[in-house]
C-alpha cells in the first residue's frame, strides 16, 4: 500500500483548521454548471423575454407608429413580474434542493459559506430578471425620464426581494422544518390543525412571493402617474422587509443553514425524510383510474412524489390560476400583458414539469425498466399528470378568464403563443444517468 489514507494529511495539523469558504464553494458550483453545459440558455431566454416585453410595450404605446406615448400600468407591472417572479420561485432550488445537497450536508462546510453561495445565486437570478425588464424600462426612460426612474425604483425593490427577502424566508422555512418548530407554530395558531412540513417549505416562500406580487400590482399605477403615495410606500415596505430578512438570515445562517441543508437534503432520501408522502387527491385518483392497469401505478407514484418534492410547482399553479381568473373578473384596460405573462409562465412551468417527472428523484429509469409496465404506459402516465396540472391550473382558469373578458382575440391568441414560446425555450434538463440521487 502507498502512504495514502487517513492520519497523514492536513497541511497544518497544528494550525487553524482549513475552512471551505463561499468562494471555493461557488467555484465548485461553477465547475459543475460548466460541465453540464448550456449555461448561456437562461441569459438567452431572458434576453428574448426582455425584447418581447419591450416590443409589446412599444406596440401598446404606439412607438412603432412614431408616437411617444407610455405603456399602461398593467403592462409595466406584468413585465416586472414576468422578470422577477420566476427567479424568486426558483430560490429554494438554488438554496437547498440542489443536486449536490446530499454531499454538502455531510461535509464540514460553514453555514456562512452556504449562505454566501445562496446570495451569489440570488444576485445572478436578479441579473437575469434585470435582463428581462431592462429593455422595457430603458425605452420608457427614453420617452419619459421620471417614469423610467419610478419603474427602476420598483425594480430595485424587486431586486432587494430577490436577493434578501425570498432567500431569507426560504432559510426560515427550512429552519422551522429542521428544528421541528412547524408543528408548534401551526398548533399555536390553529389548535389541533397540523400543518405538514412539505406545505411549510412551499407555502412560506410562496406566500411571501404572493405578497410581493400584490405589492407590485398595488404600486404599479405610481410608475405612470407619479402622484399616488401608495406606490413608494409599497416599494419601501418590500425593500425594507428585504433588508431585515437579509440581515437576519446573514446573522442566523452560520448556525441555521447547515441544519436546514441537512434536513431538507434528506427529502431525496425517501427512507430518511421526515416529510410526508400524501396519497393522490380525489381529482388525481379520478384521472388515475382511467389510465388502465399499466399507467395507473406510474401516475400514482408521480402524484405522490411531485407534491412532496416540488411543492412550489403546485403553488405556482394556484398563483397562475388565480391570476387568470382575477384578470378576467377585473377586466383591466390592457389584458394582453397579463394573459401573455401567464401564458409564458404556464408554458415554461409545464415544460419544466414534463422534464421533472421524467428525471430522478421522481422517475428512476432503471427501476421503472424492471417493472412490468411498458414504455408507452410510463409516457401516458407522465402526460396525464402534466395534462392534469395544465388543465387544472392553466386551461380551465384561462377559459374562465377569457370568457369573462368577452374573448378578446389578440390577447387570447397572444397568451397561447406565449405559452408555446415559453415551452420551447425551457430546457428539458439533464439529470444524473443513474437511479442514485
Amino acid at each position: 500500500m502507498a502512504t495514502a489514507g487517513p492520519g497523514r494529511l492536513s497541511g497544518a495539523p497544528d494550525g487553524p483548521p482549513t475552512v471551505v469558504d463561499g468562494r471555493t464553494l461557488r467555484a465548485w458550483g461553477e465547475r459543475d454548471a460548466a460541465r453540464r453545459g448550456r449555461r448561456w440558455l437562461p441569459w438567452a431566454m431572458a434576453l428574448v423575454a426582455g425584447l418581447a416585453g419591450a416590443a409589446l410595450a412599444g406596440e401598446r404605446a404606439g412607438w412603432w407608429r412614431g408616437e411617444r406615448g407610455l405603456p399602461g400600468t398593467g403592462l409595466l407591472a406584468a413585465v416586472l413580474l414576468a422578470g422577477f417572479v420566476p427567479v424568486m420561485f426558483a430560490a429554494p432550488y438554488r438554496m437547498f434542493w440542489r443536486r449536490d445537497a446530499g454531499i454538502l450536508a455531510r461535509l464540514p462546510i460553514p453555514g456562512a459559506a452556504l449562505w454566501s453561495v445562496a446570495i451569489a445565486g440570488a444576485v445572478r437570478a436578479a441579473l437575469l430578471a434585470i435582463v428581462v425588464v431592462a429593455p422595457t424600462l430603458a425605452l420608457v426612460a427614453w420617452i419619459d425620464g421620471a417614469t423610467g426612474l419610478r419603474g427602476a425604483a420598483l425594480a430595485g425593490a424587486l431586486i432587494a426581494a430577490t436577493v434578501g427577502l425570498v432567500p431569507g424566508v426560504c432559510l426560515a422555512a427550512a429552519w422551522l422544518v429542521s428544528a421541528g418548530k412547524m408543528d408548534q407554530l401551526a398548533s399555536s395558531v390553529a389548535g389541533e390543525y397540523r400543518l405538514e412540513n412539505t406545505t411549510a417549505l412551499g407555502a412560506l416562500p410562496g406566500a411571501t412571493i404572493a405578497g410581493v406580487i400584490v405589492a407590485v400590482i398595488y404600486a404599479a399605477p405610481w410608475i405612470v402617474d407619479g402622484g399616488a403615495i401608495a406606490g413608494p410606500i409599497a416599494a419601501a415596505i418590500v425593500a425594507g422587509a428585504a433588508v431585515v430578512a437579509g440581515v437576519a438570515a446573514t446573522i442566523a445562517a452560520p448556525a441555521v443553514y447547515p441544519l436546514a441543508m441537512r434536513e431538507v437534503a434528506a427529502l431525496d432520501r425517501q427512507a430518511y425524510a421526515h416529510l410526508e408522502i400524501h396519497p393522490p387527491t380525489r381529482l388525481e385518483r379520478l384521472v388515475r383510474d382511467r389510465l388502465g392497469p399499466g399507467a395507473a401505478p406510474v401516475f400514482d407514484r408521480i402524484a405522490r412524489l411531485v407534491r412532496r418534492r416540488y411543492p412550489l410547482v403546485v403553488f405556482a399553479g394556484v398563483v397562475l390560476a388565480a391570476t387568470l381568473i382575477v384578470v378576467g373578473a377585473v377586466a383591466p384596460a390592457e389584458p394582453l400583458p397579463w394573459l401573455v405573462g401567464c401564458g409564458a409562465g404556464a408554458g415554461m412551468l409545464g415544460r419544466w414539469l414534463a422534464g421533472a417527472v421524467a428525471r430522478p428523484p421522481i422517475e428512476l429509469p432503471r427501476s421503472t425498466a424492471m417493472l412490468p409496465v411498458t414504455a408507452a404506459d410510463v409516457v401516458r402516465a407522465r402526460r396525464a399528470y402534466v395534462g392534469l396540472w395544465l388543465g387544472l391550473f392553466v386551461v380551465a382558469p384561462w377559459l374562465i378568464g377569457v370568457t369573462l373578458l368577452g374573448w378578446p382575440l389578440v390577447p387570447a391568441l397572444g397568451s397561447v403563443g406565449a405559452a408555446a414560446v415559453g415551452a420551447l425555450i425551457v430546457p428539458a434538463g439533464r439529470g444524473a444517468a443513474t437511479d442514485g440521487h
Partner: protein
Amino acid sequence: MQQPLVVEQLTVHYGRRCAVDRLAIEVAPGQIVGLLGPNGAGKSTALLAIAGAVMPSAGTIRIAGVDLARDPLAAKRRVGLADQPPSLYEFFTVAEHLALVAEARGDRDLAGQRALLADLGLGGVADRPCRELSFGMRQRVGLAAALVGDLALILLDETLNGLDPHAARRARAALTAAAARGAAILMSTHLLGVAEGLCQRIAIMDQGKLVADLVGDQLAALLAGGPGALERLYLETIADREAT
C-alpha cells in the same frame, strides 16, 4: 488519545417510528467494528446520524472528543462516510470529486489523493467523470471519499458490497492500513465472511437497539468455532420475523 467515537443514548425518530433507540457505543483508535443486523434495523440511520447527515432526536455523539451538536464543523472534519448509494458530483472527474471532499476536510495533498486512488484501483479512471462509472467503481469512489483527509473515524454503509474480488481485496487493505494509522472504522455489512476476516469487534443491531457486542476473547472464542460461527450467532440473536 481521544476515543474516535463515543455515542450515548442516540435516538432517531422518523415521525412516530423509532429507527435508532438509545444506542450507546464507543470505538477505540485503530479498531474495525462490523455492524450487523437485518434490513431496517437502524444501521444506516445510526451511521448517517454519527456522520451528521441526519438529525438525532436525542443523545450525544462525540467524534475525537468533539461534540457533533456543539461543533459540527470540527467534528465533521474528522469523520468520513461512504453511504449507499454513493453521493457523487456526477459531472466531476473521480480525481476532482475526491479533491473537493478532501478540500472540505482541509486536505490539499493532491499526490496523496492520487496515491489513494491508485491503492483502490481507481488510478485508471481518475480523469473520467463519475457519471460514466459502473456500480462497483462508484462504490470505490465513495470509499475513497470516505478515506481522504485527517480522519479519526470512517463510517461505511454496505460499501464492500458489489466489489469484484480484486477490488474487495484492495478495499480491505486500504481499511486495514487506515486502522493501522489510528482511524476507527465502523462498517455496516451483510457480508459475514468480510466481518469475520476484517473486524476486531462485531456489533449486532435489531429494531434500533444494540443487541450483541463481541470483542477480544469473546469474538476469538466465537470465531474459533470455525466457518459459519458468526452466521449461527446472528441467526440465534435475530429472530426471523418473516417466518413467524
